[in-house]
């Protein structure tokens, strides 16, 4: 499999995508971030007690198709999104990037994340977990078809709301 993977995509290429994405999210360039996604993309945050569940049968924290994800971005850019106004400062550390499979035009990849989040008048909060991605090459560029941010915390607890993009 590694040979096939090697012929279609390299880990460095996937890492570049993840690092660019992390930068766009940390700098709140959300429209540019949306442009990294396919037109049929999904964004999931499973519930802490059912990290492997399917959003059709299980109540997730976030389960956005691209339509709702675009609405989420409209909301996040609005000063009336009170949970993110003033905007959080976030800093994402992405590591342990691996290509986990290639099936047709879908590249599966995973990575670990630590997201430090700072807010005026608020606790410092640390979101720790891993990503599972489905990536598709479109017009020579890697695009995100699905991203799943799976938190390690047993419950959200003092992490509170997931009001920014994980």
């Amino acid at each position, binding site marked *: 499999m590694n040979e096939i993977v090697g012929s279609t995509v390299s880990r460095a290429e996937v890492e570049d995508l993840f690092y660019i994405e992390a930068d766009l999210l940390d700098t709140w360039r959300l429209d540019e971030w949306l442009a990294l996604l396919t037109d049929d993309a999904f964004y999931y*945050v*499973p*519930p*802490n*007690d*059912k990290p492997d*569940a399917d*959003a*059709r*049968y*299980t*109540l*997730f*924290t*976030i*389960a*956005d198709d691209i339509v*709702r994800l675009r*609405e*989420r971005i*409209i*909301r996040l850019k*609005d000063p*009336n*999104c*009170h*949970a*993110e106004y003033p905007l959080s400062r976030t800093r994402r550390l992405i590591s342990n990037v691996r290509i986990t499979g290639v099936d047709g035009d879908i590249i599966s990849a995973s990575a670990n994340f630590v997201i430090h989040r700072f807010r005026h*008048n*608020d*606790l410092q909060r640390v979101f720790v977990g891993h990503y599972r991605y489905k990536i598709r090459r479109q017009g020579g560029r890697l695009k995100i078809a699905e991203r799943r941010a799976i938190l390690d915390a*047993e*419950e*959200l*607890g*003092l*992490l*509170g*709301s*997931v*009001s920014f993009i994980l």
Partner: protein
Amino acid sequence: MNYQPSGHDFVVENPEQQTFFVNREVFVSDDVLAHEKAAIFDHCWVYVGHASEIKNPGDFKTRPVAGRPIIFCRDREGEVHALINCCRHRGALVCREREGNARQFYCMYHGWTYHPDGRLKSVPGADAYGPAFDNAEMGLVAVPRLESYRDFYFANFDRDAVDLEGYLGKAKEYIDLVVDQSPSGKMQIISGTQEYDIRANWKLLVENSVDDYHLISTHSTWLNYMRNSGVNVTPPKGELLPTRGFGKDLGNGHLTTDNPNYRGRPVAKWISVYGEDAKADIDAMRNELVSRLGSARAARVADTNRNLCIFPNLVINDGSSVTVRHFYPVAPDRMHVIAWALGPVEETEAQRARRLHAFLTFYGPGGFATPDDVAALEAAQLGFAAWREVPWSDLSRGMGKPRDQQLATDEGHIRVFWRRWNELMETRA
């Protein structure tokens, strides 16, 4: 005459001036919290869980109830129990998992084991105890009272409390309106728990859960999302909200909003967010409701949204979807919230997916609205640091109107909570 009261009472009502104030000390004081635990949480019926969560013999869930570690479980004979998760020997938790199916509960400290109905099963080295030691007395302690209404289980730590149905009173009708969505009268908690802390006093979430006055200012981004999706959310001239709803007193401190629906209902009112292909299915569900309940009752079930608060700390919001959530104070300025989605057991895969999608448009820590509620409550709690200088929260909206004409954007229903809270705090002072 001054608008705001002087003095140090917690709740001050002045019908002549049409004012109702709550002293913000009740949101910050350790003494008040200690007294609430004794006077309210130890005497009221508090939510434990739903029968559907422990469907099979041996199934269990562990969770805090009124601050106690509880095992909510079904024994081998199918009986439901709420056992205090505390070994009779030296006090350790006898079950440390979130959920599962158990043949027995095993205390890992010294190895005492208990049956799923709580009876003591075995004690290593039992011969070291004197003749008075009796296995029959030394089972796990059950909550003093455990009763259910339509599969919702509640505990009471006061053995002498009125029975649950008497306690719920008129709130039962509003639970029925939720359960009637199911053709078989069986609802289920859907898998996936939303469990999060809010750095604010627990009573603020009671107020917020039923407060429709905040919708326009706190949730404008959600309204935009609905509008962008083709839902008509524009209030008629002279109104604050898209529809004119009411806030109701259900007795015993229970209260609800009762609003004509505009935001869609999985059972059974279509909105554009659901997509064109859902229309026929929603129509069929509506027809089932009408044939089962008659058109008037079907309209009550399908055309109204109701945010119901069962005193003191259970909220069932039957709005964009159904959420069951309860919360308990960790400290005066912090609460722990546990919330689920509820749906009819017979929903098809498509119907269930639609319900969950609708849930996340508004509710939960990643929803389009709840995070802003949390932000509002936390902002209020930060403001309360000045409770001595700015002591009064104002809940006077609608004070000049009869109690049966309170709008959901008035505060009459929120005053119902506060009057009952004050009564219990004073009775047991």
